């Protein structure tokens, strides 16, 4: 049984076919990259996987269960977390609170216990402390100590990307969808991000689906790559295979140059 699998996935918006015949399968604990030019449908694919869009055709299987068409909060509960291309943080919360919000599914404090049971030893108090400890581990992992209590709206762009990654990790996901984690970062920040992505894969054993335009990063860290253009798959294979494929080069680069030259 495949760990994570997409079969014949398709979605159209009115007359526009955004995705068609998407097929791929991801091994547990690997990094799988999706590449393609702007507007190829990469983010649409993520939106289908985590339930923001309902695909018209095909199936998405996670550990043998069909998840297509389920609501985003259900999919989050199954263990699929994501980050966004354009940062979607809770900008009026601190870093800590953002990560605590990511612990939503692990907390049972409801309205009543949250409002009326106060104190360190109450149910909500103990639960809050336990979850804060978890969040602290993520803060340590991502070096966010210095911005723990700052409002994320005022943080620099690169840090916001980190906080968003942290919030996704707070869900303790089995599958993590990263939508351009390195977009708009300088080379030093990119290095850090690549390091963390590897870390998350190696140490936490999280399966990662990655959308990224930085070819060097993609070729370096991914096990397999899916290239799409105009919503249709061009090819799927190992980084070496994808690099050599003339179709990919044509679609992605517009001319037949080595990928190394661009990266």
């Amino acid at each position, binding site marked *: 049984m495949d760990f994570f699998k997409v079969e014949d996935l398709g979605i159209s918006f009115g007359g526009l076919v955004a995705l068609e015949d998407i097929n791929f399968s991801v091994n547990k604990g690997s990094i799988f990259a999706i590449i393609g030019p702007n507007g190829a449908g990469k983010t649409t694919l993520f939106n289908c996987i*985590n*339930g*923001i869009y309902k695909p018209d055709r095909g199936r998405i299987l996670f550990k043998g269960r069909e998840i297509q068409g389920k*609501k*985003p*909060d259900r*999919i*989050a*509960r199954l263990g699929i*977390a*994501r980050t*966004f291309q354009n940062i*979607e*943080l*809770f*900008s*009026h*919360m601190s870093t*800590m*609170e953002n990560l*605590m*919000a*990511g612990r*939503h*599914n692990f*907390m049972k*404090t*409801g*309205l009543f*216990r*949250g*409002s*009326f049971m*106060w104190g*360190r030893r109450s149910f*909500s*108090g103990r639960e*809050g*402390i336990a979850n*804060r*400890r978890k969040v*602290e581990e993520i803060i340590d992992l991502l070096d966010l100590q210095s911005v723990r209590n700052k409002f994320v709206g005022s943080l620099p762009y690169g840090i916001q990307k980190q906080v968003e990654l942290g*919030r996704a990790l*707070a*869900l303790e996901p089995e599958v993590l969808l990263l939508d351009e984690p390195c977009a708009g970062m300088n080379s030093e920040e990119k290095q850090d991000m690549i390091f963390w992505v590897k870390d998350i894969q190696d140490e936490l054993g999280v399966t990662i689906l990655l959308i990224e335009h930085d070819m060097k990063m993609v070729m370096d860290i991914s096990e397999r790559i899916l290239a799409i253009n105009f919503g249709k798959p061009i090819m799927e294979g190992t980084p070496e295979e994808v690099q050599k494929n003339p179709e990919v080069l044509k679609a992605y680069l517009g001319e037949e140059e080595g990928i190394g030259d661009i990266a």
Partner: protein
Amino acid sequence: MDMKRDYYEDVQLFSSGVVVFWFVLLMIGLALFPLFVKNYYVYMANYMVINIIVAVGLNLLVGYTGQISLGHSGFFAIGAYGTVVFMSEAHFPFLLALIAAGLAAALFGFLLGIPALRLEGPYLSIATLGFGLTITQVIGRANIFGGRQGLHTPELYIGPWHLNSDVDFYYLLIVITLILVLAGRNMVKTKVGRAFIAIRDADIAAETIGVNLTCYKTLAFAVSAFYAGIGGGLYAFVLRFIEPEMFGLMMSIIFLAMVVVGGLGSIFGAIAGACLLSWLDLELRNILSIPYVGQWLEALSKSYFSITGVSNIQFIIYGLIMVLIMLFEPLGIYGFWIRTKIYWRTWPF
């Protein structure tokens, strides 16, 4: 210091001994206050704390969850009529009737929250506005609610005590308000409150971390309506008489103004806004009796406005103050507070 302490300190009610000191001082002040002032000021305080309850509840919806409501006078009316009718018709004791009426308001809040799932901004405000106006119409025509004639409240007993003066009622109000304000404050520091804020700041991201939008948006409406319902139930006993005309659109707008003037997304702001606007509302009615200023305003109003101008002066000044606050501090009174705190922290440098 043990780690556990550290984490809890982020959310605990009293972050230091200084805060405990001020809190105790405030409680003593509130307890002694009625002994030293005229009855009118006790009445004013009662009016204020009821507005505090409603404003805190409305802020949970508008400020924290980011949903607008222009229908809170509807929930307020449900609470007021519900309490009186539960007491006179079903012979519930006061506190039980009050809670039952609050829950009835919460039920209507939940129902109003369902269309709110699909509406936003101006569309939502019109939908809630329609709800508020409908409630007044329905209540004004139903016999059980006394129709246009209104209802007198029954005598108020809590257990063996007969509360028959403003001062007696004041102590009850303070206790209820304290419970509800602290509950609101704790709510926003725990899971439910974080989910509310998440919906306000980025609803799509909120869904992807597992927040069920349907559940939490309707919950926000229900909670906010509960606060308004409790406020309404208590208001009936402050006035001892209710009629449908009181719960009009103006009331909803004033509730919203309290939250915005006080500061959106802040419990302190809701309290401050409610205090300021209810104080102004009552004080400005007497503005013409202030020496010099009153006479000047009267002369001004007689020469430039119509016959009814004198009574409109209070609304003009009321509106003017709101405009000025919003103009100079969009974060409302809460913004002033934050700025003052920052200023004194580094004073005199």
